[in-house]
């Protein structure tokens, strides 16, 4: 502790990369929901929790191997997200504070429903033996599973980028975010775009959940731990994909370095103060499109 020599600095940087990948994975679904649909989704943590529970369910009742649970959780949580968007969120577009509150209500309902169904006792996800081993490269020591998380995060970011910038759907999404009316006049159905984006964001939270269920135990309340962190990444990044990647990387590394010098909780506190100061100078975040009003 205290001083920081080169070895521990490199260790901290590698660990920071791992933390960054976790935060980014937690934030990515939130980023696209916020960036495209404009909804502050307070139930995002519960979408993550649902991802963990659906993996648990599929694994322990249907014997699905863990690696297949990840895409399966995507499908399950995306479907739940779709239902919530159609049943509630779509009526609240253009009322940002109300969507925030309503999604908080959704988060309470989801958490309590899971508690009633599965109980409050912790569940565990089993992973292949290889994943629970540790990898030693020189003096750097990292668990294999954390490398898996990094790989999945990289895959998810690349996939999302491809979807938004290289496909017809992505073009429609960007048209709708830039000018809804004009997009509509070109025959793009904004309501459909929002619905699919919301479901996609929920599905990505599901992916995050099935991995976080391994990192931590599976509990009805597990989502709350991620939601604030995910929001800070989104706000710092300005609500764009690139912004979140940078913000996630930066905050993850800083958290890790601060933690190496002080301790975990104090590092979190410091990091938060830093974000408040940063947002004071740049309220629009790292990469935000200029807003136009009136």
């Amino acid at each position, binding site marked *: 502790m205290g001083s920081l020599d080169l070895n521990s600095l490199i260790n901290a940087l590698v660990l920071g990369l791992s933390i960054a990948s976790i935060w980014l994975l937690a934030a990515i679904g939130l980023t696209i929901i916020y960036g495209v649909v404009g909804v502050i989704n307070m139930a995002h943590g519960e979408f993550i929790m649902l991802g963990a529970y659906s993996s648990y369910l599929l694994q322990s009742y249907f014997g699905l191997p863990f690696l297949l649970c990840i895409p399966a959780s995507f499908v399950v949580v995306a479907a739940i997200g779709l239902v919530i968007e159609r049943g509630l969120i779509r009526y609240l577009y253009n009322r940002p504070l109300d969507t*925030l*509150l309503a999604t*908080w*209500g*959704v988060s309470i309902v989801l958490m309590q*429903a899971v508690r009633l169904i599965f109980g409050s006792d912790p569940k565990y996800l089993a992973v292949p033996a290889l994943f629970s081993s540790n990898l030693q490269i020189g003096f750097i020591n990292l668990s294999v599973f954390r490398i898996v998380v990094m790989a999945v995060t990289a895959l998810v970011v690349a996939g999302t980028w491809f979807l938004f910038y290289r496909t017809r759907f992505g073009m429609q999404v960007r048209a709708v975010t830039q000018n809804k009316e004009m997009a509509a006049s070109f025959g793009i159905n904004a309501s459909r775009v929002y619905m699919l984006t919301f479901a996609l964001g929920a599905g990505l939270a599901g992916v995050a959940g099935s991995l976080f269920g391994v990192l931590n135990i599976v509990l009805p309340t597990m989502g709350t731990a991620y939601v*604030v962190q995910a929001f800070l990444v989104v*706000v710092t990044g300005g609500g764009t994909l690139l912004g979140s990647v940078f913000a996630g990387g930066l905050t993850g590394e800083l958290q890790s370095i601060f933690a190496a010098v002080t301790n975990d909780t104090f590092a979190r506190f410091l990091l938060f103060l830093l974000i408040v100061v940063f947002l004071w100078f740049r*309220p629009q975040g790292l990469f935000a499109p200029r807003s136009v009003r009136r």
Partner: protein
Amino acid sequence: MNLYHNKLAQWAAYGVFFAIIAAVPLFVSDSFLLNQLGTYGVYGLLALSISLCWGFGGILNLGQGIAFGLAAYGMAMTMQMQTQDPESNPIPPFMLNNSLEQLPALWEPFWSTGLGITLALVVPTLFYVIFGNLMFRARVSGPFFAIMSLAMLSALFTIILDMQPYTNGANGITPPQPLTILGTPLDPYGPATYWLVCGLLIALTVGAKLLTQSKFGLLVQAVRGDAERVRFLGYNVAAYETAIYALSGFIAAVAGCCWVILVQYVSPAQLDVSFSVTMVIWAGIGGRLSLLGSMLGAFIIQGGQSYLGDALLSTWLLGLGAFFIIVVRFLPKGLAGLLEMGLGALSSGRRPKQLEPADRANAMAGE
């Protein structure tokens, strides 16, 4: 005219409410029940503070636990130090367990009861002034402010949990004896303490109600509607936002002090995110635009929760969450809004308000 908007009728309703809550000790002989009803006064204060900040000021504050918790810790520290002796026994037992050999400087001012209580009220209020000023000057508003206040709360929660030797971490502080003021101990189970909380609730409610009727109150509501327009009329919007936010923080700080006087206990649970959100739910369901409605919302929800017991807690919360969604979607003014509509229908004999075509056109042009 709608009776709901009649100022005299409003004050009459508040008068009846005050009379009822003040008369409670005359009818309740069970001291444990009286103590519990006293904590409802604390919930009432918190709901009042949320209604002022969110309902009137439009500032959704998901971190009201900051003021509540900081004040509660200040009060608990004051009460703890009342039982310590500077000569023979200067260090609280939990610090000894955490192998502290000296009283931390942070604790020194709490030797004095007057200074301790002053700090318990001033520190949270000042915190709100600084944090609010920082945020509102940068024009952080709406959902972003909500998230920042939430994040600030969780940061504080982690730091209090982490500073085990100073705060006793997750166990919290349990002052062994009730608060003694001017040589007299305030029995948390006696009517005097109940009336103290009740008196503070009445005084602050009257103050808040008057505030909403002042020019300041009007401006704060204008800021809620369109902050930019207010700026162009020559007002420093950030100053108004900071003021209403800090005032609501002060009320929550009073609530925090009362809480510790009543329960003789504080822990990081008072700064838990879910408790702060619960406060918003009280005001949302009761009616955030009505101070009285918000307080009644707190009473109904907390009452229901404690009488249903732990066995049905999950089901109760599930129902509450679902009902809250319905309120947000269909009843933005909460149950008080329902009353407003009812009284409106009664006094005019027709549906209270209908959107005219011109209104819709304006609404669309406004976006």
